[in-house]
């Protein structure tokens, strides 16, 4: 690297610097393990916090489309948070037919005045009102009359009634958002746990841990994001180590952006306010030279004896593969899971994920190598 900070370990390897993003903890919680072949629910099904998807990194593109406000009677509004916005007409021709649509600000876009003063962010848009037609004619030409058409646009909980009498144009600024990629680290809460466990993902950004002991053990979970995403999370709930007003923070030069629409800015590469992933063992694994049924274990290497808690990177245990050693239906669909004997003895092995009786199974994720890893987050975690 040619500038900034660089911290090396005793072997001369990069621990963090001002150019590369480490992985930092952004959330932690517990989840009760779910039995194999059981749908997770209750305390066994937990949502990943929204912040881990970096849902508040937004950028409003300017200049946006212009719209005109429409004067309507006050009784036509449902509340003081709404503006009546004239429908702009847009048209396009496809296969000889011209289609006309009215357009309005989209939900999530921002409304500003002609002088770029922000009115607020659009949270809802009504169906079009007072459009008539089709009034056009002539062969395949399809047309509606948008002369009096408008939308009721809701601006959050901002009282916008003072803008309603204005005849000035307003503008819509398109919002572009960045979506973060959280990673999942898990360990059993009990120091006496011995068994196999894997990750199951449900819609709504929810996860469960499949506990093959059938004993509903409790598991600790840490969610991590790249430091770049960590830096983009607003609020203080991401500071799991407590350091908000003190500590060490490393930043890039002003050469980073979350999306192509964003301006160049400095992004976080390291922050002592949360725990950093410290890898002990890692291995990329696939089916291996033979597709070893559902009873084969893989070593990730040896762990030294330690009282500091070890954590398993679970991302790759979400996937499935057909067990080609099982040729009769119902057929075993297998997945890689962690085989936890103790804090100092952790391997990876195949287990049956579920049984497929339909033959509809198509994908086999473990034809290519998937990453497995054991890590620590320091003495306090």
């Amino acid at each position: 690297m040619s500038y900034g900070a660089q911290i090396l370990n005793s072997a001369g390897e990069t621990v963090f610097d001002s150019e590369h993003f480490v992985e930092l903890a952004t959330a932690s919680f517990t989840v009760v393990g779910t039995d194999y072949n059981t749908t997770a629910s209750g305390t066994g099904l937990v949502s990943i916090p929204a912040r881990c998807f970096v849902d508040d990194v937004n950028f409003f593109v300017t200049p946006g489309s212009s719209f005109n406000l429409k004067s309507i009677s006050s009784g036509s509004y449902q509340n003081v948070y709404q503006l009546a916005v004239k429908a702009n007409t847009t048209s396009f021709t496809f296969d000889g037919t011209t289609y006309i649509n009215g357009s309005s600000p989209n939900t999530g876009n921002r409304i500003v005045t002609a002088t770029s003063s922000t009115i607020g962010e659009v949270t809802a848009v009504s169906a079009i009102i007072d459009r008539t037609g089709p009034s056009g004619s002539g062969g395949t030409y399809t047309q509606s009359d948008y002369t009096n058409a408008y939308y009721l646009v809701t601006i959050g909980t901002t009282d916008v009634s003072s803008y309603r009498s204005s005849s000035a144009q307003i503008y819509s600024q398109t919002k572009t958002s960045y979506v973060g990629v959280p990673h999942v680290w898990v360990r059993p809460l009990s120091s006496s746990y011995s068994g196999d466990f894997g990750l199951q993902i449900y819609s709504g950004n929810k996860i469960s841990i499949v506990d093959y002991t059938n004993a509903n053990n409790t598991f600790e979970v840490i969610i991590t994001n790249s430091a770049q995403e960590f830096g983009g999370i607003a609020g203080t709930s991401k500071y799991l180590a407590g350091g908000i007003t003190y500590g060490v923070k490393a930043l890039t030069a002003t050469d980073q952006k979350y999306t192509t629409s964003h301006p160049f800015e400095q992004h976080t590469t390291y922050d002592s306010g949360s725990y950093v992933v410290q890898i002990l063992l890692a291995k990329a694994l696939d089916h291996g030279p033979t597709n070893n049924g559902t009873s084969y274990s893989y070593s990730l290497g040896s762990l030294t004896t330690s009282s500091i808690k070890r954590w398993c990177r679970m991302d790759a245990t979400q996937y499935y593969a057909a067990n080609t050693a099982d040729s009769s239906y119902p057929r075993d669909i297998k997945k890689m899971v962690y085989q936890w004997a103790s804090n100092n003895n952790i391997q990876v092995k195949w287990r049956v994920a579920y049984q497929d009786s339909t033959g509809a199974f198509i994908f086999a994720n473990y034809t290519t190598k998937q990453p497995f890893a054991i890590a620590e987050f320091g003495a306090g975690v």
Partner: protein
Amino acid sequence: MSYGFQQFDSSSDLMLDTSTAVTTLVKLDTVTITLFKGETPSDSENYNLTGVTSQQDLDDNYIFAQINGGFWSIVTAGGGGEGHTITYVSPGVIKFTISNNACYTLFGQPTQCGDFDLIAETYEIYTIGKLL
């Protein structure tokens, strides 16, 4: 410690100590690789990977997190997603090769591959224990 960097959390627990051989997960790149099906030999693309020295090094000291479709997409979770095969080529160079080169109809019957039979995968690439 006589040198290096120590870091403690608000409970005074030692979080990080660089006087040991501690290794963090350091992100190198986010890359999208698009490969086409049905080609002979199988479609592939080389990629310059900082510091890689062997297939063993690639397996043990790099993590490729497959994120296409969004890691948390219900489409990707569980059944979906066909990763490319990633192999070591030479110092500093690896190769992505399409792992599923065959094309099928909606009914699962083999069929001729076309221009739209491709697999695009996005990876976050992390390295462990390298001098960057």
